[in-house]
Each structure stands twice: as C-alpha cells, then as structure tokens.
C-alpha cells in the first residue's frame, strides 16, 4: 500500500512542478541554514575530554584583596604560583596539575631546518594521566623531575615528525630556546576542541606541541603567554612571577567520585580560611570546582554570535515551515474533490491521511537532500572564514542523520494540519469544481 502512496505523491508533486519546487526550495533553505549553524554550535560545544570530562575539575580560589571586593563576585580564573604550589604539595585530589603555556623557539638538530616558534605547555607531571593523554613512545616525567627541574620534554607526534622524522626520539636532545632538553616521551597529537585546559590560548585549532616541567620553564626563563592578572602591588614582571600577587597558572584536578568532589571542595574552603588567618587572603572563602563542560559553559566558550546565527536559522526554518504549511493546505484542500471520490470508493480516513502525509514526507526528503547539499556548501563557506574554529566545521554522521530526521519530521508535522483538514472531507457524489 505504501508503494501506492509513494506513487500518488510522486504524481501529485509532478503535477504542480513550480509549487513543489517552491516547497522543496523553502524546506531545503531552512534545513540547510539550520544544519550549517547547528553543526557549528555542535562542533564548538563538543566534549573535549570524552569519558573523563565529568571527573576533571578546574579549581578557582579567591585571593584578591578586600578593596575591590563585591559580594557574589567570581574568583579569578587562574591561581598564583604560591597557591598552586600549596595545593600541589597537599595533593588532596586523585591527580592534580599546575600549568601554563608559552611560545618557545625550537632549533632542530638538522641544521638545514630554520629555528621556529611553537606553543608549549609547562606543567607538573600529572598532566598526562589527568587528561588521559596517550603516549606513543616513552612516558611522562615524574614528580621528582618536577622538583629537580629536570631538562626533559615530551613532544607530540607532529613535532616528532617534523624534527625527528617520526622515529622513536626518546633519549634524544631537542634544543629549546638556549637549552638542550632530553626527549622522554612522544604523545599522540592532543588538540582538545575547545582547548578547555587553557582558554587564553586560541580556543580552537591546534594545541601545544611541546610539554615540559613547569619548574624547568621557570629555570630556563621561558616566557609564559596567556593572561596575567595582578592585584594589590603585584607587578607582571616575568622574572619574578613566583612571588608576585598575580594569577597566571591553571590548576586542574581529578576527583573520581562525588564524595571526593565534596571533600575536595571542603578542603579548598578550609585552605582559603587558613590563608585568611595567615593574612594572605583578605576575602571570605570563595572557591569553585568546575567539571570540564560546566567550565566551558561558565566561560561561554561558544561565541554568542554563533548561537545568534543558529537562532536566526531556526527562526528562518520556522518561517519556511509556516510557508510550507500554507502551501500544502491550499494544495490539499484544492484536492478535496479527489479526496471525496476516493472516500466514496472506499478509502478510509486513515488511508487518505497516510497518502497526504507521504506526500509531505516526500517533500521533506527532497528538502532534506537539498538542505544537506546547502549545509555542506554552508560549512564549506564557514571553513573559508579565518576563525580559529573554522577548520572544525564538518558535518559528522550524527548531524548528517539529524538533517534528514529534522527535514522529514518538520515537513510531516507541517503537513499534519493540512492533511487532517483534507481527510475530513466527506465522501462525495460530486467532484466539487469550485
């Protein structure tokens, strides 16, 4: 029977080609616009740390002075060297890492290659296990290396390919700035999208390619990049950041259970209170623990523009659907004569309804295909843009299916009102001409 409905729908759609084209065009435009923007939103708001994101937390402490205090204010996003080191020493979380980023000059051992600058991450040793970063060769440095400020480095596959031709480079030396660092591990490229771990770097795109102990970076005088927020008498002199009242480091912890999370929160409050009693903190304890997704939410990582574009596209799709409802209504009601005859010849109301909805679904399918083409085109245009996230804008399988689901579901819903009205037509002796 469904084959018959398809055949009838096909005939009906072919009979009024310009109207059919108009409906498909409107649905395709609406779907295309929606899927383009929703894909961008989808890509930008993805979980950068799948499987671990709900156990990994960003830690915020409020170490600012009282004179700029506002009740209900948020603590600064980063921590000072002193606080970071204190938390690290206490080691109350399952894993913890204190880190920042910077740009460093790398001089390849192959003299025919020019020196170049790359993004580097200076961190304490837990960063790899904390973020679940996979090693190809070698392994991470240890807490002892952190303490001794060992001249070691972990590099990514991409850097390893470029400098060492992809060979196992563990044990070899890499010249970073003025120093030789011994490569102790090679990791797979780790480019979480967005770069939740340090949003002051580019939020999307390529991530750092070189990892070295935080202490080592201080010893070598490697400048850090990202934001430095000083308060009180703090001065952002790179050389003495350890002692200044400036926040410039990110602190991440892993807490495997909700109970541990609560306990850690309490620990942070107690820590703040102790610092207050000590005279270092002036404000009442104000701490935050964000898991990865809430952190991205809190930082409003997905640009407002992108969301507004998505809202606009949704509004546009609604207009396209209202348009389609109107046209289908006119079209179906014009066929009330045919419906009456079919009813007289024994078609049930349900059969008429199914027939008309099949027609609507067919428009949806065609609109979905058109929308898919437009979305692919739209995403291609997005990728042409110089945004840092532009390169990520690809249609994945979920969104591919979603395109058709949305197209067919929305046109069938749009067809429901006209079809319900049309199938209410009484079986008739007369084909009404007017």
């Amino acid at each position, binding site marked *: 029977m469904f084959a018959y409905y398809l055949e009838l729908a096909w005939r009906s759609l072919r009979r009024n080609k310009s109207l059919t084209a108009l409906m498909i065009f409107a649905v395709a435009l609406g779907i295309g616009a929606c899927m383009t923007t929703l894909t961008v939103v989808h890509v930008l708001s993805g979980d950068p740390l799948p499987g671990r994101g709900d156990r990994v937390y960003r830690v915020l402490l409020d170490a600012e002075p009282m004179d700029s205090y506002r009740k209900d204010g948020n603590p600064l996003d980063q921590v000072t060297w002193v606080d970071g080191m204190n938390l690290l020493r206490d080691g109350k979380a399952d894993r913890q890492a204190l880190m920042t980023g910077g740009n460093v000059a790398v001089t390849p051992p192959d003299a025919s290659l020019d020196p170049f600058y790359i993004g580097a991450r200076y961190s304490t040793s837990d960063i790899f296990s904390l973020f679940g970063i996979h090693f190809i060769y070698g392994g991470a440095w240890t807490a002892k290396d952190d303490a001794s400020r060992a001249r070691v480095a972990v590099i990514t596959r991409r850097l390893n390919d470029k400098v060492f031709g992809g060979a196992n480079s563990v044990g070899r030396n890499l010249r970073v700035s003025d120093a030789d660092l011994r490569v102790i591990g090679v990791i797979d490229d780790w480019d979480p999208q967005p770069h939740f771990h340090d949003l002051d770097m580019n939020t999307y795109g390529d991530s750092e390619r070189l990892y070295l102990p935080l202490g080592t970076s201080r010893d070598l005088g490697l*400048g850090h990049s990202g934001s430095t927020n000083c308060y009180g008498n703090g001065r*952002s002199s790179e050389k003495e950041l350890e002692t200044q009242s400036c926040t410039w480091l990110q602190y991440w912890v892993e807490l495997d259970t909700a109970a541990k999370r609560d306990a850690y929160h309490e620990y942070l409050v107690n820590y703040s209170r102790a610092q207050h009693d000590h005279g270092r903190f002036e404000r009442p304890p104000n701490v935050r623990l964000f898991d990865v997704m809430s952190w991205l939410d809190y930082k409003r990582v997905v640009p*407002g523009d992108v969301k507004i574009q998505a809202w606009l596209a949704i509004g*546009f799709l609604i*207009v396209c659907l*209202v348009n389609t409802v*109107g*046209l289908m209504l006119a079209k179906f009601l014009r066929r009330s004569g045919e419906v009456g005859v079919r009813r007289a010849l024994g078609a049930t109301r349900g059969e008429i309804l199914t027939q008309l909805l099949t027609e609507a679904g067919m428009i949806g399918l065609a609109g979905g295909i058109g929308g898919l083409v437009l979305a692919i085109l739209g995403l291609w245009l997005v990728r042409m843009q110089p945004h840092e996230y532009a390169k990520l804008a690809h249609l994945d399988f979920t969104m591919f299916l979603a395109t058709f689901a949305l197209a067919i579901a929305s046109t069938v819903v749009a067809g429901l009102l006209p079809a319900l009205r049309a199938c209410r037509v009484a079986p008739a002796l007369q084909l009404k001409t007017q």
Partner: protein
Amino acid sequence: MPMDILPILASLRRHKVTAILLILEIALTCAIVCNAVFLIGLRLDRIHTPSGVADNELIMVRMSNIGGRSDVRARTLEDLAALRGIPGVRSAAILAQTPFGYSGTTSSIKLSSDQKLPTISYVSTYFGEGVVNAFGLELVQGRDFSADEYHWLQDLNLGLPGSSPRSVIVTEAVAKRLFPDGNALGKDVYIYDEPSRVIGIVRHLVTSQEWVPGQEDYSMILPMRVSPDAGMGGTYVMRTSPDQRDRVLDAAVAKLKGLDPRRVLTQKSTLEKQRATFFSADRATAGWLIATCAALLVVTALGIVGLGSFWVAQRRRQIGVRRALGARRVDILRYFQTENFLLATFGIVLGMGMAYGISLFLVLQYELPRLPAHYLPMGAVLLWLLGQGAVLSPALRAASVPPVVATRG
C-alpha cells in the same frame, strides 16, 4: 478607488486557516528581519570603528629572539636606525601593543592614591617610544612626551626606583570619563598607585585588544621604552605611504635578518590586514545575517505568490461573475492588492510584538542592546512593499480572468 474592506474581511474569514498562516509568516518575517537588520547595523558600526591611527600607512614586523640576549637594548636601537634608513619609511618605532591585536595590557586609573575602586578599571595601555608619531595620532590638546620622560619598561617591571611613568597621554574618551566636568590636561591621575600627569589628549586611539561595547577608545599611552625581551616583546611599527607597504615590509624583514640572523620572524603584516582579521568574525556574522534575511524575504515573497495563485485559481468563477456583473479589471486588481495589504498589516502588527519579544530574549541572553523603536516602522514598510510586490503577479492574473468564465461550470 478605495476598496470596501468589509467584504474582503468576510471573504478572508472563509479561508481562516490559510489567512492566519500567511499572517503568521509575515509576522515572523517582520520580527526576525527587524532584529537581524539591527544586528547587522551593530556589526557594521563595529567594523567601522575609528582607530585613531593611520590605518593604511602602518606596517608591522615582529622578530623573536632565540634564547636570552644581553645586548637587546643596543640591538633595538640599531634595528630602529636601520629601519629608518629604508627608503619610503617615514617613521619607525618599537611598540609593545598595536591596535586590533589579540593581546594587550590593561591598567586601572584612580584619581587619588587612597581611592579603593578605580575610576576606570580597564584602560588599554600602550608602551613604546614615539607612539603618537608612529601611529599618526591626532593630538587635540597638550603635547607629546619629551625624550627625557621615557623609562625602560623592564625597569618598571623589576620595580627599579625612578622607573615609574610621571606623565601620560589619554584619549578624549578617557579624559571625559575621568573628568566629566573639567579639562583633564595637567591633572594628576594615579596609575600603578603613583601619580602621573596628563600631558596630552589624543582624539582617538582604539584599544589594543577586544573591548566592551562603548569602550573602544579607552586607551592611554605611557612613556615607556620597550625592547624585544620585555615580557610582552616588541613590534617594529613603521609608517610609509599606502602603495609602498609591501615593498617596505620585505625590505624591513631583509634588513632585520641581515643585522642578526639568529631570530625568528613571528609577524609581518600591515595594520589594514590586522584590522581585517580582527573584524573577520563580525564580517562573517553580518554576511550570514544579510544572507538569511534575504532568503527569508524571498521565501515569504514566494509564499505570498504561491498562496495568491491558489486563491486566484480557486476564485476564478467568482471573479468571472464579478466581471460579468460589471467589475473592471482594475477593481479585481485592487481587490487582491487590498486583501494582501490587510493581511500584511495584521502580520506587521503581530510581528512588532514578536520583534519586541525576540529583542528582549537577545538582551537577556546575549547582553545585546535593545532594538531601537525606529526599526519597527522600517520593517513595516519593507513588509508592505514585499507583500504588494509579491501579490502583483497573481492579482494581475486574476484581473485577466474573462467574464465568460461565469457562464462555464
């Protein structure tokens, strides 16, 4: 001839659902387009933010050293002298910040040393010798820094005594904010908790990084010399004539490389390009909004044509009867035009309410400014014109129905 509206309304009531759908479509279009046009306007305003600098004359080169150096200050002076020697270069300076960059420094300004909260919390701060001249800023009051006022930024960062700036040049926007009722020139303000005298006021100087709307001119210049090993590094900024920019850029890079090959070129650009990159997201958003609006209007227009055609086909006999009873072509035309005008009007009224609602949503959700009222009548006129334009073809078809149709089945 004015058309009697009541019979049209009565006839519309018989096509209630279709009429309501058309009204809804027009309303949504009106609401969305009003808001989108407003947003486009905001973007375009932003893209055209005056920078205060000679946008099309500035070029920038940034070199990064490999490892620490001890002779950076001397090297820097040597570099600058070489750059000034390139034909076509009118000025060269090394500055820590450039307009429309992605990084910068902000400082707060207080009016007295015991003030708790600063008068302005985030003022984009420019460091470097000769900023006013290098950028081509328009000094509206006061003077530029004299050579003896400059200190090294590194010394300030290290807290060396006597390295604090004692004078400052601010923009008109900052001056106005600090001293709303008086002249800022010659007054002392507190930066880094030390007094600095306002010795000059420039017309405009855009901030060196992203700004809060309305604060794009919150900038000041401090008399600090920079060199590439200062925390924030330094960019060589040169002024030349617009048509020589590419040539001078290449020459400058070659010259700097020649002076010291042990450094890496990390930036080579014109300010115009940097500006374009900075606003690329705004341009893309504006483009997207414009495209969507256009598509929206096209779809709505086609919808009106489509439904109009249906109604005409459905009423052919009725039109024939009217014509047989003496209606002129123009009467039929007017009938459909008036009908569309009524539908559009209902849609526009409804759409204005929706436009307000959408605006409220955007204000609350995305902290955008509220839709100014004058966008609504603009939207109304647009939709009326769109409706009349779209209904013309079906209405003309209706007007061409011959009276003889009345006599046929």
